């Protein structure tokens, strides 16, 4: 080996070592800062992947589509009366729970009717090979499974919005295009009609940012009181709690729903909606 090739070899070695060091250092660094998340497509918004026990049972995780369920029931029915947690994975649903008629099994029991069809049964105590197709209706993560509901067909007649599912759910209900039920027979407790609290205004910390008009009417009709107070909003009275956009973006307070299912934070003027006085 001559002198030149020796130095060339040494140079190559140095470059190789430098690249290896860069890989070792930059790898964890980039994973810590993270890559910008892709904004979910309208039909993906609100999707929850439930994988507590599925993989242990040799099943694909469950893909739960919020859009179809929220068109049928108010948030309160599922998150208060049926008892689903507000955080993905927080309910710890088991197949046995569903088979006993709780959680998904409260509606998916092979008896309840919706849209002129019988709602398919969720989990059953003894699943046969013939049940595999039924299981895959929910346990469909990573599989190509045809659904009874097509998002584009469903959303076609509904009023549009810019973000989230691309739909104005509130307006859709006002127009009678969707009729989310506020009760589920045998599950919901018969309650007195709700005394709707007044809407109120919140002043943002940032100057020149329009005030927030909080629609208590809409929130209480869809959620009741106990879904938000005290677990999401620790103070009942206005001004008791202070919220920051950083915390909201992290999924606290308004962010519990408005980063996951309800219209997202990018839709600023739907909350910061009070016209600025000239």
């Amino acid at each position, binding site marked *: 080996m001559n002198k030149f090739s020796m130095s060339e070899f040494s140079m190559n070695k140095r470059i190789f070592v430098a690249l290896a060091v860069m890989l070792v250092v930059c790898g964890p660094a980039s994973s810590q800062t993270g890559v910008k998340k892709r904004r979910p497509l309208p039909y993906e918004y609100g999707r929850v992947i439930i994988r507590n026990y599925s993989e242990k049972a040799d099943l694909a995780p469950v893909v739960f589509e919020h859009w179809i369920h929220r068109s049928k029931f108010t948030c309160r029915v599922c998150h208060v009366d049926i*008892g689903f947690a507000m955080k993905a994975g927080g309910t710890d649903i088991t197949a046995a729970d569903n088979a006993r008629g709780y959680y998904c099994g409260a509606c998916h029991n092979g008896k309840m009717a919706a849209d002129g069809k019988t709602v398919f049964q969720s989990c059953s105590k003894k699943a046969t090979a013939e049940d595999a197709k039924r299981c895959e209706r929910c346990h469909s993560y990573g599989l190509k499974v045809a659904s009874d509901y097509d998002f584009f067909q469903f959303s076609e007649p509904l009023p549009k919005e810019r973000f989230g599912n691309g739909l104005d759910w509130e307006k859709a209900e006002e127009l009678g295009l969707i009729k989310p039920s506020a009760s589920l027979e045998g599950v919901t407790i018969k309650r007195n009609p709700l005394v709707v609290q007044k809407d109120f205004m919140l002043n943002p910390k940032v100057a020149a940012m329009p005030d927030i008009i909080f629609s208590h009417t809409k929130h209480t009709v869809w959620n009741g009181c106990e879904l938000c107070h005290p677990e999401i909003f*620790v103070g009942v009275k206005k001004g008791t709690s202070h919220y920051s956009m950083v915390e909201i973006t992290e999924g606290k307070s308004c962010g519990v729903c408005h980063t996951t299912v309800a219209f997202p934070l990018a839709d600023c003027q739907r909350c910061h909606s009070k016209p600025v006085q000239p």
Partner: protein
Amino acid sequence: MLFNAKFKTTIITVLLFLGLAVFCGVRAMGAPQSSAAPASPAQETWRKEFDDVCGKTQDAMSFSPEELTELIRRCDSLRPQIEKLDESRKKVYLGRLRRCRGLYAYVLDEKKVDEKKKEKK
């Protein structure tokens, strides 16, 4: 005589058979059983109490501190009964109870703060 004795035995046998068939038939034709564990009268009592206590959350703001305290006490006494239920029921109803008790407790706290403010004034 022998014929009479044989006849009587046959009739008794037939009657016994029919009785057994009717008894079993009634049992088989009874109300359909739900997949959930059958509710005993004790379970029914807790459910009635649960529905009564947690069915008032809509009116939480209109209750006096004394009424709210009583509702919280009733929630607390329901808890041990719910803890005895099967895993699924326990999970569902403890969660529901937590939410309704939580609401009453927070409204009560707010009312107490309000009362203190009024006293100061």
